[in-house]
């Protein structure tokens, strides 16, 4: 039985899905996480406690573990452990991405610099320190622009500004977010803000797997809700894309060039792009698969889940022949209507009854605080749909969402 080390933060949405996939594939799994399992002493060797930020210490722990229990692959779930996965895989001689390439995906300024150095289209941008004078921090970027933390995910802390006054307010707001203790631990990354020109256009997400540097596109998602700011709360993803084939090809080609510029060559990738009359613009690339529970909408070949595909690939199985099912599918990350305390979500049965809706999952327990973007760090829940056409998928998601009554008290 092959043995896999799964590196997963305790706050991941995807732990159960990856463990289910490993079980279906009959793998021996050890889970490396950032908090000690309460049952560690009852199941020796099945969990590892690792600080994902202390790469050298983590590398030594994993190498020591692998001496007694050899590992066949290391897979990182979510952003936080991707660096340790690369470092430890390198130490054990397992297939992995270049550490430098993975690092570039974890810092938005480094990433954008790599694209420019490779001659790829990029808006004007500059790196500002959080304690810079907001009146000067825009430099020559101009307006409209977007301020971004360097290392946060899920549009957290991303704000559009259309003029100097709006920019100063956005800059200070992101600075306050970065000063929060949980984020300030990021160190240097939490002391800087990326300021870049706003790119208009429709947004697309690409899900892929890299094998020996070749991108295997697993899904191209349209995002039919306009993402124009001031905050960028993602909602609906629908695949296959309704873009013209030539536009889709251009998007894939742009993503390939960006991956090449960064140096990624192995494993799952998730890319965000914008498309306008000037062509495709790569916004971000992550060396991991799609976040939240969104992967549940993807099925490949004979019903294979994305997590299974990722694990198979990590273990050296060929994935070139695997294609997404033909039926259009989509997911809605349920928007947080306002800040407050979640009292109830009514209408779940009615939402499930909408033709095409496959599941409704609420991921915030009742009684918990809801914090919208740009500060918020949680999804309220997810709607999943499969239907005869991408338009029908989108309509089903909107109809189901309209049936939900999300009750929030101040």
């Amino acid at each position, binding site marked *: 039985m092959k043995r896999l080390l799964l590196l997963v933060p305790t706050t991941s949405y995807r732990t159960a899905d990856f463990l289910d996939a490993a079980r279906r594939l009959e793998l021996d799994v050890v889970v490396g996480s950032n908090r000690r399992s309460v049952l560690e002493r009852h199941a020796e060797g099945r969990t590892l406690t690792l600080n994902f930020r202390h790469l050298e210490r983590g590398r030594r722990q994993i190498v020591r573990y692998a001496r007694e229990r050899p590992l066949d692959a290391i897979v990182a779930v979510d952003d936080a452990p991707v660096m340790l996965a690369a470092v430890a895989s390198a130490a054990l001689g397992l297939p992995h991405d270049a550490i430098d390439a993975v690092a570039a995906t974890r810092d938005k300024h480094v990433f954008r610099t790599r694209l420019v150095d490779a001659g790829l289209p990029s808006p004007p941008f500059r790196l500002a320190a959080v304690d810079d004078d907001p009146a000067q921090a825009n430099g020559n970027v101009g307006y409209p622009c977007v301020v971004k933390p360097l290392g*946060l995910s899920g549009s957290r802390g991303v704000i559009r500004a259309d003029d100097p006054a709006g920019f100063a307010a956005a800059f200070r707001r992101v600075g306050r977010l970065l000063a929060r203790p949980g984020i300030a631990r990021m160190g240097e990354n939490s002391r800087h803000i990326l300021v870049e020109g706003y790119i208009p256009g429709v947004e697309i997400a690409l899900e892929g797997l890299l094998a020996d540097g070749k991108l295997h596109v697993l899904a191209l998602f349209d995002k039919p809700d306009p993402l124009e700011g001031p905050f960028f709360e993602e909602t609906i993803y629908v695949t296959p894309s309704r873009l013209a084939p030539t536009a889709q090809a251009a998007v894939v080609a742009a993503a390939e060039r960006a991956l090449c510029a960064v140096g990624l060559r192995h494993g799952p990738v998730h890319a965000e792009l914008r498309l306008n009359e000037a062509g495709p613009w790569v916004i971000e690339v992550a060396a991991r698969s799609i976040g939240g529970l969104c992967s549940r909408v993807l099925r490949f070949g004979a019903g294979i889940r994305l997590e299974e595909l990722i694990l*198979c690939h990590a273990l050296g199985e060929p994935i070139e022949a695997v294609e997404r099912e033909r039926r259009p599918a989509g997911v809605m990350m349920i928007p947080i209507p306002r800040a407050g305390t979640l009292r109830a979500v009514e209408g779940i049965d009615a939402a499930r009854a909408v033709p095409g809706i496959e599941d409704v999952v609420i991921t915030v*327990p009742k009684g918990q605080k809801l914090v919208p973007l740009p500060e918020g760090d949680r999804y309220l829940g997810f709607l999943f749909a499969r239907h005869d056409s991408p338009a029908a998928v989108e309509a089903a998601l909107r109809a189901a969402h309209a049936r939900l009554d999300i009750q929030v008290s101040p």
Partner: protein
Amino acid sequence: MFIQTESTANPAALKFIPGRVVLGEGSVEFRDADEAGRSPLAQRLFAIPSVTRVALGGDFITVTKAEDTDWQVLKPAVLGVIMEHFVAGRPVVTDDAGGSDALAASVRDLIETRIRPAVEGARGQIALRSFAGGIATVELTGQPASNATFRNGIENMLRHYVPEVEEVRFVAKVREADEAAPEVGLDTDEAKAIQALLDDEINPSVASHGGYVNLVAVKDKRVYLKLEGGCQGCGMASVTLRQGIEVAILEKVPSIEEVLDVTDHAGGNNPYYQADKGGESPWA
């Protein structure tokens, strides 16, 4: 898989919502096991003592109990049956007419004559469990089960030779004993050993996270557990179960083969670890 429950106007009836399509369209009600002949799911529910009526709807199952039974006792067993049924990919109803029978025979023949030799050559086993509504549910075990390319090839072949096959679902091979519903079975030596393990070692440990693990049933080498308190809905509940509780139980009681979680995780109000978007940098 999360199964939600919802009360109905009749206190003896409880609605179970598995988050998956049950009938898709329409509804059907069975008053006893005989009537439920065309529904493997309803048949298994009727195998639970005190279940008196089963109704299937688009996305729900309504179970009615005998008056003298408490839902507290019955609910875990019902949850266990429903979860096991869907996880195993079994059909809810099998009421296809002769046309589908002929197609099922074609699919079975194809598997036996052309696919089985390749699967066995790769040290695996394969069998058609059911074919209904264009979905072929195929039991696959051994190395081919963990090989995505292999599974893809099987699906392509089935679709090619039997165009009515729209989807192929692979499930692990089911033992005969699994066809019966879990019974409580807590008086056995195995159950007592597991309860002692939970009481003496597991629960004192998970209590540090406000959690509690409840033994629901032991049946046919399977243990059914319910995770409560801080474990209910916890983002790491699956790690606690698979990488901790299951390992400890299998070591203590080697005759046990599998540990199943029948918790309604969506109902957890205070999970210890709650999921978030993460995104913290690895540098510090």
